[in-house]
């Protein structure tokens, strides 16, 4: 049993053993970000109360009084790791030890998000400039199971994700699993991965998914028009695109 836990088989094993009093233990951790993703969980409004009643919230600086980080089944991590901050690195290591599964929530944790624009040199701590999404952190590689795109992620998407997690709905969770190894997050990728590869059907889903309205729809040619200035690298467009997750290998052009 211990061995299974070690290699990252997670809460579903517990489910089969302790079905009676099983309550999923979740925690929220905040790194370099705006806290908006955690607030987005609360923006499920009434459903958020249901969730708080169904799962056991064991750690969140905002919502619990607990100071130390307990063992938990799922850790929702928002924000990028700031390499210059020793507290961040220690905290992330601890999360890696205490949590069975880590979920990267939101653009900053999953793909770097708006942190990709940071360049440091601001008072009072000009040295803070290296921000790394947690999906790229080597010592967490086996732990980060899912990445949720968006800036912030849509509350109803988070609700569906939590339900899928509780029901172990693998079909629903698969795209989130794939996104942990993806570095594709911006409108440039919509152009290079979908439009330029001939997959774009002109449905316009990417333009409706974009939280900054950086993608509009070019009616002349029926394809997305991308304004790079407004892009915050959150990954919403590529995640929403019905053509971006193909079950077969993507074609390679030589």
């Amino acid at each position: 049993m211990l061995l299974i836990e070690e290699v990252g088989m997670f809460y579903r094993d517990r489910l089969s053993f302790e079905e009676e009093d099983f309550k999923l233990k979740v925690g929220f951790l905040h790194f370099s970000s705006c806290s908006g993703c955690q607030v987005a969980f609360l923006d499920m409004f009434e459903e958020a109360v249901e969730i708080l009643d169904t799962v056991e919230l064991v750690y969140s600086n905002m919502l619990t009084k607990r100071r130390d980080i307990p063992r938990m089944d799922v850790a929702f991590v928002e924000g990028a790791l700031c390499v210059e901050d020793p507290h961040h690195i220690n905290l992330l290591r601890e999360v890696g030890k205490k949590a069975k599964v880590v979920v990267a929530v939101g653009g900053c944790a999953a793909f770097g998000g708006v942190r990709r624009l940071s360049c440091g040199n601001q008072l009072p701590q000009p040295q803070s400039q290296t921000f790394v999404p947690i999906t790229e952190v080597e010592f967490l590689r086996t732990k980060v199971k899912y990445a949720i795109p968006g800036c912030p992620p849509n509350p109803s998407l988070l609700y569906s994700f939590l339900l899928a997690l509780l029901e172990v709905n693998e079909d629903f969770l698969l795209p989130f699993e794939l996104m942990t190894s993806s570095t594709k997050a911006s409108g440039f990728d919509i152009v290079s991965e979908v439009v330029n590869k001939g997959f774009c059907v002109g449905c316009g889903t990417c333009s409706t998914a974009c939280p900054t309205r950086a993608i509009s729809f070019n009616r002349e040619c029926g394809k997305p028009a991308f304004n790079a200035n407004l892009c915050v690298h959150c990954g919403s467009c590529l995640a929403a695109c019905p053509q971006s997750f193909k079950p077969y290998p993507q074609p390679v052009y030589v």
Partner: protein
Amino acid sequence: MRKVVKLEGIPLTEGHSGLYLEVEEGIVKRGIYYALVPVRGFETLLLGKDSRVAPTITTRICGLCQVTHAIASARAIEDAAGIEVPPEAERLREVLGLAVRVYNNLLHQIIISEDLFPEKKEQLGFIREVQEVRKFAGMVLETIGGEIIHSPNVKVGGISEPVEESVKEKILCRLSDILPKLQASFSLFREKLDDLWKREGLDEEFGKHDLNFFATDPYYGKRFDFERFSFILPQEILEAGLKRRASNLFPVIDGRPFETGPRARAVLFRGYKPKGGVKELHLLRAQENLDALKRIGEILERGRFDGELWNRKTPSSDGETLGVGVHEAPRGTNVHAVKIDKSGKITYYKIVVPTEINFFAVSEALRGAPATKVEFIVRAYDPCIVCAAH
């Protein structure tokens, strides 16, 4: 005997912050409150960027009071470039600001509900009530601002999407249902706050300080002379171990520290006589929710917002004029200052957020408090650490 106590991480507040306390016989003689979240560099990352993207990027400073940064940023650029904003757009921005005030103040009530309700069942009941009102505020933010968190519709020059009359009617109709609900949850909140103060043995003057108050407007925000701000670095007042870690500046106005926020607005614009102490801060914040909802109703009833609300003039300035944008955020006065050049690129950006101004107010309020109860003072100010370490 004076002892130094250092606390790191204050539960039931946003972000990661710390307290440096000098304690004598259990009473705090001197305290400093500071942020420990790494600086993300919003002021430097904007340099050289097209000024029209600033509201979209600065709104991502904070996930709790998002739209206030977008509004302050847009107003600062309009001020620098001399862009006239349609008056209806300004009123809609005020509505957005007030909606986020309700949304955020109630979030604070949810955050501290573990303090207020020892019984988990009661706590969830309270959260359920509060969430209904937050859902309404979220609806206002989403229909007018485009999204609940990080509104994309606040643009330099106005609001990008008009609001149809039918949509406006829908908001007004919901508003009349929501007001009594907010009133009921306010009474419950007040009752539970009294219980908390009794349970913890705190007196009415707990957390009192004698600083002056700073606010520019009860609802929206008026221009403020940015030159009056000066900034104290944490390295100047904190000890060695914290010099490389504390990540906020301590802004002062005319060289003196101030308190900003709901109490400042009540004192300066409603003739409120402050009793001191942090309990009234909770109550004034809750009172502001009711005022804000009523004001939203007034603004929407009076105007029509289905025409063009966006002056699409390209911003351009001489690179010297300092544009200042002020918005009364939930926690106090939020100020953005910007300089832009002829091509509309940003050459200077500075952000002063309310929590930064309040760091000294919290530090002052700690003086004389029992060392075991200091967290209640910090929580009462509803600090937003991510804003402070923008």
